[in-house]
């Protein structure tokens, strides 16, 4: 059977999918990880989990994606849901103004429970339903800039920008980690004899990608 322990990745990143119920989180996930889309998919109960491995600059990145039911937001799933998450895809439905209005609440949720350095991508999903659009792309863009988020309009149905959205998040995380690693090396060199500083930096960079991010 295929239950093998694999270490065929260089980095392990946990990404959470959040947003109101019905915005298409699970379909974004299935499109990204399995290239599937289901029009009448069952609503998520609790949390669902998927993984996908991608390559960035010759490194293998394994993304572990946690997808919660929108309804669960403040209740059954505890804050541990965000533990170890280094990226978030915050999804709204461009045909439903309410889901866009609620983005603010989701951001607050992230600020309260997730790591402050979490990389956030806001995705306006269902861009295929342009004729039903309720939120203009410009509104999304303006909001994203104001909040310092990445932004894309996606369509899980048409497979538009889904891959790109995840890749952007993962890339950004990867670069942050790399920068940290470099800074750590730098710090280690300059700090030199101070043993304390060295040990902290090492754990932050080299071990960081595999231990801190893999939610073990």
């Amino acid at each position, binding site marked *: 059977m295929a239950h093998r*322990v694999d*270490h065929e990745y260089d980095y392990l990143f946990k990404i959470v999918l959040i947003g109101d119920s019905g915005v298409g989180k699970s379909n974004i996930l299935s499109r990204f990880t399995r290239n599937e889309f289901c029009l009448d998919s*069952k609503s998520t109960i*609790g*949390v669902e989990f998927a993984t996908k491995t991608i390559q960035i600059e010759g490194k293998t990145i394994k993304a572990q994606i946690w997808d919660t039911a929108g*309804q*669960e937001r403040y209740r059954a799933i505890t804050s*541990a849901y965000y533990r170890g998450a280094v990226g978030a895809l915050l999804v709204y439905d461009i045909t439903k103004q309410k889901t866009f209005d609620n983005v603010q609440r989701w951001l607050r949720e992230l600020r309260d429970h997730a790591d402050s350095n979490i990389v956030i991508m806001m995705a306006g999903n269902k861009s295929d339903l342009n004729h039903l659009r309720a939120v203009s792309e410009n509104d999304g863009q303006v909001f994203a800039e104001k909040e310092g988020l990445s932004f894309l309009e996606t369509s899980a149905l048409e497979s538009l920008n889904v891959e790109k959205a995840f890749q952007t998040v993962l890339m950004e995380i990867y670069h942050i980690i790399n920068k940290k690693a470099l800074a750590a090396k730098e710090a280690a060199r300059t700090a030199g004899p101070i043993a304390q500083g060295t040990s902290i930096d090492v754990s932050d960079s080299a071990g960081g990608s595999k231990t801190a991010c893999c939610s*073990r």
Partner: protein
Amino acid sequence: MSTAAAVEASSMPRKRFSGLRGVRWRIDLGILPSSPSASIDDLRRVTADTRRRYASLRRRLLIDHHPPKDGDSSPDLTVDNPLSQNPGMHELLAPIVYVLHVDLDHLLQVQKPYEDCFNDEFDGITLPENNMFSNYKVKRASDWDSGIETENTHHIMSDGRSLDEIDPDTRDILLLSDSYGAEGELGVILSKKFMEHDAYCMLDNLMEGAQGVVAMASFFSPVVGSSTNLPPVIEASSALYHLLSIVDPFLHAHLVELEVEPQYFALRWLRVLFGREFCLEDVLVIWDEMFSSSNCRLIGDDVEYNFKVLCSPRGAFIAALAVSMLLYLRSSLLATETATTCLQRLLNFPQNPDTKKLIEKAKSLQELALVSNIVPSSSQRDSNKGQFRVSSGYSLPSGSAFPVPALHVVPDSYWEEKWRVLHKDEELGEQSNSDQGSAKNKLAEKLSLYRTKSEPLKAKSALNRSSIRQILFDDVSSDIGAVENHVTSECCEAPIDSNNLNVGDFPVVFADQRSSNWIVDETLMSGDNSVVVSKFLYPHDIGNEHEIDSVKSSVTSNSFLSDNDEETFNIEEPCSQNVSNELAQDAEATSSHVADAVPEQRATPIHWKSFAGIFQWFWKFGRGSNEASCESQSSSDAPNTNKDSFDTTTCDGTDNSCGVNKRIEVGDKKMIHTLRNLGQSMLENIQVIETVFQQEKGKFDSLDNLSNNILGVKGQSTAISALKELRKVSNLLQEM
């Protein structure tokens, strides 16, 4: 109240309406009277009443849209929370509607032979298909039951058989669907016309729990429960981890270590009652079992408990089934390294699992779930209890119900046992140097097979364990029961074949002397001390046959998993070495736990002590493990620095104690000869140990800073004295 009796009663197969799942569910869910003496007319009257209630509720809601504020609060929930807003609720409804449909189909099948009877000359017009009543007008049948004699009595069926001659099931069905019976059409129990009414009543009772413990609606509610600070679904999730921690502490610890909180997967399992994990047919079978377990609260109001959901047999079954599923995935889960992969597996339960085995396993755990929920009333423990409740998720009620040891201790004791069993076999094999028994060969065959499958292993021994175990488990999971038996017998018999000296005869010996098979089984098969111990901590139920049986079965079946692990160690020598180091480290922790458990029984009833006595006796003579336990107990200060020595002594201890038992039973010369050999080899081993010990001592002096457990002078001396003891034993053996 005897929980065992209640479980038995509730799980008893109900013969009545066996072919009509919808009717049975209505009885089980508390809509129809469950008393076997209830007549068909009684059922019909109750049915009619429930339909009237639903009809009036619907009328009220349709006419004025305001939800009723009067006393009748139960229907509000489904009205206030339209199904679409709560994913899952409609998935509870769907099987109910399906079952009602199937019953109607069944009715049509049954009616076919009597078509002439139903297709009567009432008006000679065939009415549209969708009106069930016109399809089987049972005008003629009406006087069968009511006793009203009409001018043309139709006691004789069209094919010449009288009503009394047809089988009771068919008769019931015909009576249930007789629109001329009690309450007329409204009382027709199998009725397409009132399917909506019936489905509503069933869903309502399922959601509200019909005054029982498990009310599904609460699983959708964020409202914090009264007894804990947690929402009911989170509490129920914790309950299944609680049960898992008793049944399989190692797996539990693994999940906790990965930070897999139970609600991450249990939320879905519980909310739709496993509806998304199994195909419909399996779900129906599971629900049959679930509903047939009573939802009544078994625990008195004054008794303290840990989890509300475990207060009724139904709730206990739900938790037990979840644990059964976890055990089914055991090796696969243990092979995971991250929460995500673990959860992926948990939420992608294998297609076509052996549902029957899963249910059987769940039933065997049901009683344990009920019993383990009771908190012994002791003021001393109240403070502990409070603490445990505040902490969320997977917290263990360690301080409250019974002394479950620290998390990292239990699993290792488990492995320790496995490792011992393995080494015992190995040692025996080496010593006999003779023909290898067929069973052993078989084992070896298996192992070589596994070796080809196993992955290159990483340094971390935990990973080694898991990955191999997972491979092994693939076989196991295909048929829990068969493997259970198979492994059990293998474990017992393999040594017999290969060696004259063996543990194989041992259970027989012991059983004869003690006439308590179950203890033997437990300890021999399971290596799971914590289960054994916790069992003894439920004083209320000791002596209760049923409880013993159920615990026994849970323990033995737990062991089938572990017995595979034994093989695992055979496969991977280096692996077992790695592990053994770890295990040895915890040997003394485990045994001290076991030892602690005994004196710590504050509210110990008398018979507990007697059992404990047997137990200790057993430990003392029964098996190598206890030999090691005693030993490490005595040297409990001796830390892991001398782990290698412990490894070896443990093996010898095993051989030794088995030998003693053997002697009790059979006194033949061959045995004595073997024993002598054994003693000799023991001595050799001890010499080796002593050398190692000296070396280790030197080595670890420099590594003291790295080790948490520094080998103190006292520890050294204790360990040495333990070795002396061993020497004594070996001398004794030699003299035999």
